[in-house]
């Protein structure tokens, strides 16, 4: 099964189980959780089920295209089910079967792994799903987002698409994956990985101090504007600028441009914005709900 077939299979499976098919957030983010289809929709009481691919950038994981398993940018398949159905584990296992993984021939396990994002003021309880010892999915029952207790509880299923595709295609190097129609992953993404890794680690024709100063400045401008947008009641663009801050901070971090105290301060600033955003979203969409 090619990489793109896997996406198609998962999409048609979840669409047939009542999910809206959304598109990736067209911004640089670290995980599908940052997408407003998760971050906002899990708040409040309104039922919502959605599925989408999210390209996820992790500057720290950049390996210049040389590591067979690790990428600056990988792809997550993200499913949100709210409220979480009683049969959610079975639904998930059936989705694997739909992708050609027969659970009776493998060892599939749900092992404790709780998720937490300090920058989003969010945490949940759940498992990593292991397929013959390979971590293929993060399975989380959200408990809080933006510091707000969730009710009903939403379930987030995050598939690691490259890992699952490598398992299905029996390849040991991600760049050897067939993306589709005989085209390899390397042909689609290798140059991007190299360039992005160089950028993430500050290998730019620019002195390190200038590189750091530029990113600090971009952070500050996006941060200030996010606050302005929030004050204007424009929650969606405010989220986008908050996410830009988050990514800029990741670049500052991976390029070794921030010290300890500064690091904590940056995380705290993004968190404060995320918390305000979550409250603003709840206030705008659930006028009767109690906001803590």
């Amino acid at each position: 099964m090619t990489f793109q077939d896997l996406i198609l299979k998962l999409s048609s499976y979840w669409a047939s189980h009542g999910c809206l098919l959304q598109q990736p957030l067209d911004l640089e983010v670290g995980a599908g959780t940052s997408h407003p289809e998760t971050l906002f929709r899990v708040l409040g009481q309104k039922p919502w089920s959605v599925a989408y691919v999210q390209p996820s950038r992790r500057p720290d994981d950049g390996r210049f295209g040389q590591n067979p398993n690790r990428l600056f940018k990988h792809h997550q398949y993200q499913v949100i089910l709210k409220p979480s159905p009683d049969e959610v584990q079975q639904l998930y296992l059936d989705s694997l079967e739909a992708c050609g993984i027969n659970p009776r021939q493998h060892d599939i396990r749900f092992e404790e792994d709780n998720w937490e994002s300090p920058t989003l003021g969010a945490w949940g309880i759940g498992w990593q799903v292991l397929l013959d010892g390979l971590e293929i999915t993060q399975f989380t029952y959200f408990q809080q987002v933006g510091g707000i207790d969730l009710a009903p509880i939403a379930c987030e299923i995050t598939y690691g698409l490259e890992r699952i595709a490598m398992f299905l295609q029996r390849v040991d190097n991600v760049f050897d994956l067939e993306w589709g129609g005989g085209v390899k992953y390397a042909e689609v993404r290798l140059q991007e990985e190299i360039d992005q890794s160089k950028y993430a680690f500050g290998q730019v024709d620019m002195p390190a101090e200038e590189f750091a100063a530029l990113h600090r400045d971009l952070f500050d401008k996006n941060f200030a504007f996010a606050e302005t947008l929030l004050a204007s009641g424009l929650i969606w663009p405010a989220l986008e600028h908050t996410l830009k801050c988050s990514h800029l901070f990741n670049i500052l971090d991976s390029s070794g441009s921030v010290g300890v105290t500064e690091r904590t301060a940056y995380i705290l600033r993004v968190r404060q914005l995320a918390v305000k955003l979550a409250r603003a979203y709840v206030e705008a969409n659930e006028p009767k709900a109690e906001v803590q």
Partner: protein
Amino acid sequence: MDRELLIEIGCEEIPASWLPGLTRQVGEQLDARLKEFRLNTDAKTETFSTPRRLTARVAKLAERQEDFEELVTGPPVSAAFRPDGDPTPAAAGFARKYNVEVPALERHDTPKGTYLAYRVHQRGKATVDVLAEVMGSLLRSLTFPKQMRWDAYLEDGKGDLVFARPIRWLVLLYGGRVVPFVIRRTEIAQGPTVQDVRSGSNTYGHRFLTTSGRAGRAIKVKTFEDYQSRLLENFVILDRPERESKIRRELEMHARKLGGRVSGLVAAQSSLLQEVPDLVEYPSVIAGHFPVEFLQLPEEVLTTTMIHHQHYFPVVDDEGRLKPAFLAVINMQAEKPEIIARNSERVLTARLRDARFFYDQDRNVTLESRLPRLSTILFHKKLGSYKEKADRVASLAAWIARDALRQPDAATHAEQAGRLCKADLATDMVRELTELQGTMGGIYAREENLPVEVWKAIYFHYLPIGIEAEAAPTAAQLGKAAVTWAAVSLADKLDSVVGMFAAGERPTGSRDPLGLRRQAQGAVKILIDLPELTGLDTRVTLGPLLSRAAEPFGGYGESAAPLLTFIADRLAYLLEQRGFDVRSVRAVMHAGIEQVSPLAARRKLDALAHMTGSPALLGVATLLKRVKNITKGIAAPASLDAVREVVREPAEQALAAEMGTRAPMILAAAERGDFREAFTAIAALQPAVAKFFDDVLVMAEDERLRTGRLGLVATLRDLILGIADISEIVND
């Protein structure tokens, strides 16, 4: 007639590390609830668990609650009747409340007087009618390391029912019949896909395995016996010891086939064998291999990757060398185990390839040149970065080597090892395999050809973890690095403990996220076992060590009292764990923790243990108690000469003379660390001390005489207390 109670809480996968505790809780809480509800049992409550179920069985549970009887007291008799004998409104009201006439009330004598009373009899209800309440209160009583909300509540007015993971089914059978019970789902969640959980007689087997029909279908059960055997048919081994022994059997069998055995490291470095039975319902073992080229990686990297990251068991040959193979416990009875084995091999190989990449990359850069990067890694928000921590450790380690251990030659190595001991936190390998911090730094230092003193000090600086005398590292492992290691390991631990206390981070109850208890114990363990570990016989006193460690934080500040109590508690704990008598431990620590040398304390305890039951020593100890009482606040004179001129009774002359000869011996023996001799000499004072108290009245009328006598006994007191407060060992 007694009947069987069977409870099964069917759950989504409960974390393995919680299961043993949770299973115990179910048993204890069910017993407590049954007692509270006056339901008698003849048999012990049995509990079982798998990742997907918590099960309790009471073989014989009474059919009815015990009857209930209670004496309710009303108004005092003195206020119950008018002079004419008619009941007062208070008495009449009380009687009315229980629907009886006043004459039918009992009289109840209490220390406060006689009261009217009514005996309430309540007949016990049928067990089936109270079991729902028992179930509810059982569910409410369980506690979890981390609890989750899952849109559930009970109809007991107490709101949300939090749990470990969502509950998916509930078996509640009494005498083979279902006891109705329901866990409700909140209104906002409830719908076609979110339903109440109702008690029933259906259980569920293994997710994927079955002998007949569809895996995961409901299985109807009636009795526990039936339940256990139906589960087994459906690939669930309910009994944990059975799962464990199946795992052990198969591990041994596969290891033998591979021509080796399971590495002893598994038990020594992890709780893997304890954990796997709680990860599976139907375990079996598969064997896999990895390419032999990876054996070039440090053994520590291979075993950590296998044990901690993949839950695989490494296999070693007869000489204890790793084989390029592993064993994995799976939750399947696979038709084609080779498929799972091949996939597991690919996962492990990918991880090892990653590890090799890190190992090669990391070695391109020296530890020294990683130090600037440490300033970007936070140790603690009030105590700064790991760079700052390493600088403090370096300076403290050099001081310990030079001034505390009096080994100036080791100071340079200690300084270097201290400075570099955290550098591996900035390596890719440790960022990936955090369990290897310290170990990896040591390996990289070795690869850089740094002196053995330095690389071993880094390698072992997180140790010791255990407090028993033989806990790693051993003198043989340390070799000539022992002194440097002791200085660095002590410095790291003392810096963390003293620093965290100064920052207001103190362990409370069971909460000790920073592991300060373990670190403090590690530090005192090093000092206690110093001769065995390093060959040094230095009795290091804690006071100077702690205050030097506190210097970078501007001294103890407000943390002084809690810190010193904490250290004293850890030392006392360790000594008690080593089997020393609690009272003796108090005796050798009486002077306050700052005056205590852990090694001297251990030696004194050895000597005291040797002299247990010596009547002479006990005699002196008993009299010391008296001496302490009468000399409270009295300082001993500078010398006994003046005292000897004043005193005149033969018994006091004799005691003064005896002390004159014994005191230098006692002091010299203590100085040498020969506490057996010191205590023997103290015991030898017994006849003279006893005779003194028999014949002499200390509190004489004559002030000069009294002062002289008090001076004499105060001198005796200080002589003994200088070693230990042996009055503590006297039985009260």
